[in-house]
């Protein structure tokens, strides 16, 4: 037996910080047991986190690759693993393996372009990595627009970071919206797709979309209505994954394995796939 | 090499109203029985699902005993009648699969029968000990 590792065998990670973002989303900071970042990754890639006996699940890495200290994961409570993680405290060990998936084409396609990030709800989590990456290498990209919407103000992920850091960057514009009016909110009210239409972006931008399927569907329609070509729009898919390396068969759609060939897809590529995502 | 005495592990499901109280009475009267017997309290013997019994064997139990109120005395009037049918058929099936029939038992113990509880446990533990380790319904993954 050669002494190689196996991608299925994870290493041990430690939760070093837990931040409560919204009523059902927490952000976990994870390092290896000796305090280092578990592995390098590219924006949009994912990692498998697990709790032995509870299960393993794929999460997009929320922190930017430019952060060399640790990784962060913004996780919404919606299943066994996530529920367990939401109860976890600092110091809790978990297991981690990765990175998995194809990243956003930040170094080629995105380079020099104006970027439009559109997110809904927890959909900001996968985009945070790429947004912060692009902010870090600010001079490599054109203007950045960020449209982000959620149910309510309390449900806006990374709200602090957005208004205190992102909104203050040169060339970065943040457009926030919530679904329903509320007393302490003087920003935009309404759903993301209609807000995107209202804002009416120039079609020379490269757009990245992430959020609930229904939001993606209508926002894509809105972008197309604005004159965007689907080849300009990227999104990420979320399917059930087990192995993370395109072998177990679970996330297979058409000839693609979402864990390996995705989760980042260009919208025109998705049209080639059977509608099973 | 020192030979350690074989200690069977016995899980006893006791109904809250009669048998658990009977076990308490055995305690009140300081009637000894082996520490190998571990009691799980259930509201009624009819709460005992066959999966619990199999689970116990899987996890290393050598014997499983279910204790309830005497027929006719069930706190819930009829629970133990269902237990009686379920366990009779289940035990018969386990026997059919070749699993030692002495490893499972149903005994009716009232709240007043502390002595019977202790005697039953002593006798059952002895029988199970004589059978030795549960091999036929074990799950090797759960071995230490």
């Amino acid at each position, binding site marked *: 037996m050669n002494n190689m590792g196996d991608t299925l065998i994870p290493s041990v990670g430690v939760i070093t910080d837990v931040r409560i973002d919204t009523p059902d989303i927490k952000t976990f900071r994870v390092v290896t047991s000796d305090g280092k970042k578990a592995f390098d990754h590219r924006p949009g890639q994912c990692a498998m986190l697990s709790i032995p006996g509870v299960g393993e699940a794929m999460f997009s890495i929320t922190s930017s690759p430019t952060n060399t200290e640790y990784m962060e994961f913004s996780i919404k409570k919606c299943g066994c693993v996530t529920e367990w993680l939401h109860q976890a405290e600092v110091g809790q060990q978990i297991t981690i393996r990765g990175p998995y998936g194809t990243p956003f084409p930040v170094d080629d396609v995105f380079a020099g372009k104006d970027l439009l990030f559109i997110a809904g709800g927890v959909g900001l989590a996968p985009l945070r990595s790429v947004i912060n990456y692009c902010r870090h290498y600010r001079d490599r990209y054109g203007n950045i627009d960020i449209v982000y919407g959620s149910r309510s103000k309390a449900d806006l992920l990374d709200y602090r970071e957005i208004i205190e850091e992102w909104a203050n960057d040169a060339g970065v514009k943040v457009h926030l919206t919530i679904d329903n009016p509320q007393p302490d909110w003087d920003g935009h009210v309404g759903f993301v797709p209609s807000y995107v239409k209202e804002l009416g972006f120039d079609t020379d931008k490269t757009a990245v979309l992430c959020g609930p399927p229904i939001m993606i569907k209508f926002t894509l329609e809105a972008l197309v209505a604005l004159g965007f070509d689907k080849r300009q729009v990227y999104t990420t898919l979320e399917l059930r994954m087990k192995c993370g390396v395109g072998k177990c068969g679970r996330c297979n759609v058409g000839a693609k394995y979402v864990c390996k060939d995705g989760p980042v897809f260009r919208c025109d590529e998705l049209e080639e796939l059977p509608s099973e995502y | 090499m020192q030979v350690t005495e074989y200690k069977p592990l016995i*899980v006893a499901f006791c109904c809250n109203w009669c048998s658990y109280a009977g076990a308490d009475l055995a305690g009140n009267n300081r009637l000894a029985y082996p520490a190998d017997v571990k009691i799980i309290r259930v509201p009624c013997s009819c709460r005992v699902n066959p999966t619990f019994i199999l689970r116990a064997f899987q996890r290393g139990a050598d014997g499983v005993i279910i204790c309830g109120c005497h027929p*006719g005395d069930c706190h819930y009037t009829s629970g133990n009648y*269902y237990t009686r049918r379920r366990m009779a058929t289940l035990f018969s099936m386990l026997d059919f699969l070749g699993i030692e029939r002495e490893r499972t038992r149903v005994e009716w113990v009232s709240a007043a029968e502390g002595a019977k509880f202790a005697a039953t446990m002593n006798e059952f533990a002895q029988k199970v000990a004589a059978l030795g380790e549960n091999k036929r319904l074990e799950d090797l993954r759960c071995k230490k």
Partner: protein
Amino acid sequence: MQRVGVFVCWCGSNIAGTVDVQAVSEALKNEPGVVFSANYQYMCSQAGQEMIKTAVKEHHLTGIVVCSCSPRMHEATFRKTAVAAGLNPYMVEIANIREQCSWVHKDVTAGTEKAIILGKAAIAKVNLNTPLTPGESPVTKRALVIGGGIAGIQTALDIADAGFPVDVVEKQPTIGGKMAQLDKTFPTLDCAACILTPKMVDVAQNDKIRIFSYSEVTDVRGFVGNFDVTIKKKARFVKEDVCTGCGACVEKCPMKKIPNEFNLGMDNRHAIYIPFAQAVPKVATIDPDACNMLKNGKCGICSKVCAAGAIDYKQKDEIIEETYGAIVVATGFNPISMEKFDEYAYSQSKDVITSLEFERLTNAAGPTAGMLVRPSDGKHPHTLVFVQCVGSRCESCAEKGKEYCSKICCMYTAKHAMLTRDKYPDTEVYVFYVDVRTPGKNFDEFYRRAVEEYGVKYVKGMVGKIVPEGDKLKVQASDLIANKQLHLDADLVVLAAAIEPDHSARPLATMLTASMDTNDFFTEAHPKLRPVESPTAGVFLSGTCQGPKDIPETVSQAGAAASKVIGLLVKDKLTGNPCVAIANELTCNGCSSCERVCPYGAISYLDKEFRMPDRTTKIRRVASVNPAVCQGCGACTVACPSGAMDLNGFMNNQIMAEVDAICK
């Protein structure tokens, strides 16, 4: 996963003597979820409880495990402690390391080891506990008593006395039941009517009590605190509120050859009738099967003679719907039919009668005005033979009799024999018996008086055959003590017929989802501890519907049932036991297995619409547990093949976690 605090009690030396409590609290420290572990001399003491409260606050505990004495001892105590500390009381689990460990094991090593394992099991369970809140349901402060005999009457009066409205439903035109037909009552020999009729009047006059006579319950829905009951008030063709009970109509009614049920057919009544003089309500009733006006539209005399204008030939059955908080069943008994007992010639000779017929024969208000005569020829009987256990304790004759003892026959037969000898000293009275059972206050004395003072001839042995011959009844019997056959020529034979529940009981039990035994007697919630309650919450049992009883027993049970009803009705809300079954609608198949095993009828089904993930809808039948009715036995959880049924407080995963912890 909880934040669990473990508290190990020494119980002085009771636990600490055989269990190394320090080692236990140390060992449990590293169990999953445990954030605090300590031991203390007396956990149940004020100081011990304070320790728990402090730990809850300081360590933000969400679950508590107390390793101490039996939960039957102090579970309630520690639950209260939890509440005081701001926790849900059901976040407490007890590891019984005293009764089931330190007290039964002598070896410290084994005891400690076991205590640790029991602690681990409790921790494993508490980690899966969820806060439970008992359900609440309002209570309708009105009771329904079904049956207007002495049992129903007494129950109704006692409930009304406590200030709650009561409705009494009686299927006969009058309340009073069997007791109204009796002559004297044992062992005091006071007249039944004298003690019963004042009570009947009390019922009639009590403004808290409504009587629905000539009525029956046709439907019961709902559950404890809120039973929706439908009562059918049969048309009696007489306006109840108008009729004065004067009896003029009865006198003039031309249809006068109708067998009188009240006198067991030993005389006749009219088509319009009042069952007996003291009937309550004292109003006339027209027998639609006998009345010529109702059958053929010809006659109308009663209408003409009624000064009050109470007759209403067009009257229809009335349907009454009412909500009740509690229901008392007091449906009583009947003597079994003697038709099948050919050996006693009941069907062949009018002079073979049942004990109840004998009651009417000796009753001053009866068909003979109290003169004891032979029904066949009106002659005075000289030799009387009483036969005991006719159809009772019938192990071999289950097809015509009953296996149980009817309980009252020994005493009333002694009464009949004694009264006969008292009034007619010229008679010879034989009583054939299997055993004489007299276990009541002054009962055996009574029986001995019959034998010793009144010269009743008790013969141990059974009557084999009775053959009518001329005007005599040839009685063949055995005398087991003398070990010989007896041949007697009797003038009158009285059969102590077994009693059985009224035939209306079975359909009623179905409506109430109350359980019955194989003899159709209602089953008690517990034969010893809850003898007047049915297993169906809110349904109570009064009198012989539950089993054979004499009058004093019936009355005391009636009072007991009333007190249970009052105990229920004084509550504004019912707080349930939160440890009840819950059905997971998503996995329920609607197969009815659970419903079939539920002793309380707590499970019903509804067709529920489910939104499928693909936005279509699907209608499925799913089980629903009424938490107000469920008592939490868990029978349904095992009957359920899909595992959709689970039990709060004893969930499948909790019990399996305990199993795992114990077998680790």
